[in-house]
């Protein structure tokens, strides 16, 4: 327990972790403020205003259409010879909903905000996790610690546990605060309509998946840096994955017209995890049906599939880090 307490203290004392957390919080604050300022609450007054704007637009376009028709009758050759083909606006073309101010519909939009939170905290968790153990190796702190506690797996495991518990606690607290902020924004600048018990349950489950995503990102950063005994290895691996998979491989597969090349993009899997599923379409293929004709075939990636992928990556990276910790000399 004393080792766990020491490792938690060490993590909290690290300036890099504090600054990165503050940076992440500033970005999240900017997102919340931006959402608050770009949305308005919608009531009968805004609907009436939108309807008036839609009517004015309709009348203006009607006037333009009439002017065009008159020009066409004077010289039909300029308009392809058939003035009856000219577009005549109808009221249905100018629905008032197009002129409504942006409003924050909690039920519809908060899921994207959870994904934003998960992405920002996940990135910060990866870097802090890598730096937390990487700096220990490069500064010699790990060797000092092992002179005190010559139990390599226990030391690395305790460090990981202290990091994940602290990170998990922080993620849960921030998720709760994030939810509270957007409930406030929805009440002041939008709507909470449709938030039934079922909708709240779905929201909480999405937030739970976000917390898991953040923890996995942190553990992967920690594991990669522990594997290479240097922070740079984790960051290098991340850059490598982005360059090789996100740009290189997907570009090559797309050029080769390989079906569902997007499945190699990590953000696609993040979306599948966060939104429960994502459908990819193969526009080069054809699923023929007598009623609908040729439809592109679909591949559905589900959250259990994304979870399985994360679990495999986690076991491989953290398992390899533990194995090297146990077997490699410390020189």
């Amino acid at each position, binding site marked *: 327990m004393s080792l766990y307490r*020491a490792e938690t*203290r060490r993590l909290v*004392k690290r300036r890099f972790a504090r600054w990165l957390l503050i940076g992440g919080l500033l970005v999240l604050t900017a997102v919340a403020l931006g959402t608050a300022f770009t949305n308005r609450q919608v009531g009968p007054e805004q609907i009436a205003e939108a309807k008036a704007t839609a009517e004015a637009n309709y009348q203006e376009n009607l006037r333009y259409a009439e002017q065009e028709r008159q020009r066409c009758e004077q010289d039909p050759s300029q308009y392809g010879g058939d003035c009856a083909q000219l577009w005549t606006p109808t009221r249905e073309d100018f629905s008032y909903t197009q002129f409504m101010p942006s409003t924050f519909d909690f039920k519809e939009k908060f899921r994207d905000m959870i994904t934003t939170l998960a992405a920002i905290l996940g990135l910060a968790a990866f870097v802090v996790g890598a730096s937390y153990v990487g700096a220990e190796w490069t500064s010699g702190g790990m060797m000092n610690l092992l002179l005190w506690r010559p139990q390599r797996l226990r030391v690395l495991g305790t460090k990981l546990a202290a990091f994940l518990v602290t990170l998990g606690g922080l993620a849960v607290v921030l998720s709760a605060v994030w939810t509270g902020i957007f409930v406030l924004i929805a009440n002041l600048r939008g709507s909470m309509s449709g938030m039934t018990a079922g909708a709240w349950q779905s929201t909480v489950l999405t937030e739970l998946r976000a917390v898991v995503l953040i923890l996995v990102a942190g553990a992967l950063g920690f594991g990669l840096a522990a594997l290479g005994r240097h922070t740079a290895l984790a960051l290098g691996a991340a850059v490598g994955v982005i360059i090789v998979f996100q740009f290189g491989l997907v570009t090559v597969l797309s050029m080769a017209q390989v079906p569902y090349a997007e499945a190699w993009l990590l953000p696609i899997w993040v979306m599948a995890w966060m939104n429960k599923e994502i459908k990819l379409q193969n526009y080069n293929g054809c699923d023929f049906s007598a009623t609908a004709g040729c439809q592109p075939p679909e591949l559905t990636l589900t959250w259990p599939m994304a979870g399985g992928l994360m679990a495999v990556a986690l076991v491989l990276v953290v398992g390899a880090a533990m194995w090297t910790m146990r077997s490699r000399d*410390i020189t």
Partner: protein
Amino acid sequence: MTAVLEIAGLQKTYRSRKGIRRALDGFDMVVEAGQVHGFLGPNGSGKTTTLRTLLGLIKPNGGRMAVLGRAVPEHLPEVAGLVGAIVESPQFFGNFTAKDTLSLLADAGGVDQRRVYAVLELVGLRDRATDRVKTYSLGMKQRLAVASALLKEPMLLILDEPANGLDPGGIREMRTLMRNLSESGMTVVLSSHILGEVQLICDSVTIIAAGRRVAAGSVADVLAQHRSTSTRVRVEPGIDLPAVAEVLRAAGAPQVTLEGDHLIVAGVDRPAWITWVLSQREVWVSELSPITVDLESVFLELTGTAPVDGEHRQVDQTALATAPGRGGWGQ
């Protein structure tokens, strides 16, 4: 006396594309309780490898080790709380203060936090305790390293080059500290290249070269085994020294060497014989002094690392490192 540290037949082999290198080749060492024991060897001889192996940082390929009567590394966690160690240059996380660094170690090892201030006082860092370690000089980091080793009030203190970077006052303080610790019952193993210091403060020594023990025992015994029978002879100015050397050779002196303004006569048991021989020829001796052997000359002789004019000795080039596969990169 009880042996606090025992090493027998320790082996460590490194493999690389260049071949196999035996860093430790059946090394033996015994340190008795309450002693200050010097552990000496040229660069690359295996000192640090021995200490790291003993402390569980490196896995040996063979041999036995015991600390405080317990076999290590199997039972190292049981005795780690009684062994304080610094290995090679002091390494700490630069952004933490000395107080934080020691406090975290105390937490990790379950040591009373009051010890932090006690050891900072002891090594003279009390007034700089809240400064970041990255602002410390090498000597101050060295003091902090010693403080960290003393934090858990060890029975066995292992110090690798503790005087490295210390100013003359600091070296003297360190010497006094070692002596005081030894008098309080602590056993100190001291690895150092400052052989004058070792001769001053150590009760016993082990000398290692090319991964093997080349000498061991009390300092007095090791020096006695290499006692010199050489005598420095000066005569009155104006006397022809080569002629004097010839007189001594003719009288039966086994080895007479001309050294600038004096002669070195070796192999003569009774220096008075030299006076007698020269007085017969009316040559009057102005200085007749036996050349005393010191630890440095014994070390250079045993390890074969004495500088030779016109030669550049390589790191692994020692008296024992001539056989293939021993010392340097071999087969």
